[in-house]
């Protein structure tokens, strides 16, 4: 469960996200839609505790992100499954090492236990054959899959976050990534936040939808509510 209560976020003294209030219940996927530069990634940084709220607070499973101590923040982050824009895979590591990195760092599993889990995760995303390849040798879609597998490494994530998981992919690959996100959702049953600017992908993965424009939320609701919205920004978005 993620709650945004009147949250404002930004960099330095520049306010990017303004007074946002949102609630994502357990097991639900909220899609954040908006043009580039509207503050979508900034919102995710707030959830990750990479930015402090100027005002308001973000509460994840009862914990107020801003009030965590440095150590609590580290262990909190360890339990967030984050899929970065473009994947952000570690170039110098193989696919297997990327997926196993978290386990290697934060558990005392043996090498063979880690390898078994890595293989399991990679077969879940359909990339077991790529285990020894480097990110540079993967296509865009494969990179996103590996990034999703890497984000799933903690067995009990608090939430899953996806930053533009389908941007730059062809429609066919996009659809398969969306299906994968749904599968992950079924597997973990936690709250998920998916950022995208593609409406079709949004409807594929989301239960709830919200539109961001210049750092403020325009409309929030399920597919029905969104479709019925008379807000001109949303109407333009739906018409594209």
């Amino acid at each position, binding site marked *: 469960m993620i709650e945004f209560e009147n949250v404002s976020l930004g960099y330095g003294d520049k306010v990017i996200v303004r007074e946002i209030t949102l609630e994502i219940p357990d097991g639900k996927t909220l899609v954040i839609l908006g043009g580039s530069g509207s503050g979508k990634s900034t919102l995710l940084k707030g959830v990750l505790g990479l930015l402090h709220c100027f005002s308001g607070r973000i509460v994840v499973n009862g914990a107020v992100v801003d009030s965590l101590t440095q150590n609590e923040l580290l262990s909190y982050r360890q339990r967030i499954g984050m899929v970065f824009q473009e994947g952000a895979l570690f170039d110098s590591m193989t696919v297997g090492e990327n997926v196993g990195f*978290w386990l290697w760092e934060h558990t005392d599993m043996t090498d063979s236990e880690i390898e078994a889990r890595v293989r399991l995760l990679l077969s879940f995303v359909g990339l077991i054959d790529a285990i020894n390849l480097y990110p540079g040798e993967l296509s865009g879609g494969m990179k996103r899959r590996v990034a999703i597998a890497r984000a799933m490494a903690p067995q009990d994530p608090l939430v899953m976050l996806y930053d533009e998981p389908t941007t730059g992919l062809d429609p066919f690959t996009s659809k398969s990534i969306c299906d994968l996100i749904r599968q992950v959702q079924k597997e973990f049953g936690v709250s998920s936040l998916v950022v995208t600017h593609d409406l079709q992908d949004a409807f594929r993965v989301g239960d709830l939808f919200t539109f961001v424009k210049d750092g403020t939320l325009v409309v929030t609701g399920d597919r029905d509510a969104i479709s019925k919205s008379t807000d001109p920004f949303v109407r333009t978005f739906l018409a594209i």
Partner: protein
Amino acid sequence: MLLDLLESIQSFSLMVYHAARYCVTNFRSREVLIQMDRIGVGSVPIVFLASLFAGLDMALQFEVVMAPYGAKALLGKVVATSIVRDMGPVMASLVMSARVTSGIASEVGMMQATSQIEALSVMGVDPVDQIVAPRILSGIVMMPILSVIGDFLGIFGGLVIAFLAAHIPAPLYWSGVREALTLPNMVNGAVKPLVFGFILTSVGCFYGMKAGGGAAMVGRTTTRAVVAAAVWILVANFLISKLLLNLWGNEG
């Protein structure tokens, strides 16, 4: 402007402090070995070539100056002294800054631009721990070794010129070299590469880590890092020379 400088100094010191702490509390042997191989072993050929030609040239120039004074016999001592004290570590480090500092700055800068650094912190690992500490440690360990190789090659280059151009018998050259290998000179020759190895790698990491503005900025960041490393190496060289001269006087 001044405030920016102070801020940079502060964040640089913090980075180094944390890196030093991680080297002790969370030693990453695998990363360190990889970096030692890349920074150290990978640099042997260029240090080899640069030092050889520096030695050849130095002997050539000194011989021209010294011959009229009938001081050719001193050539071995002069060449070896300047190589061990100064030219060896400086030459090797400057060549290394072109290879290692630029390599680190562009690699780390690219990691920054593609969110890999952010991904590390989100996965609960301090980037200074995973990225910076192993590189600085490898620089500090490998640079002295490379420097010794470079010194040897430079002195050997001097011998070639002494023998072929100045017609100094090899034993005479070598006895001059031995005279140059005094304790103060060797300490000088060991401390400098240690410090330079630190500068080479830490400057590369620092610029890479604070690279902002996406992939397009990585090139500019890299250039800045190399220039900064080269300048700091020369400044440090002067300061260490001065310090050790004060310590030991002019002996050696």
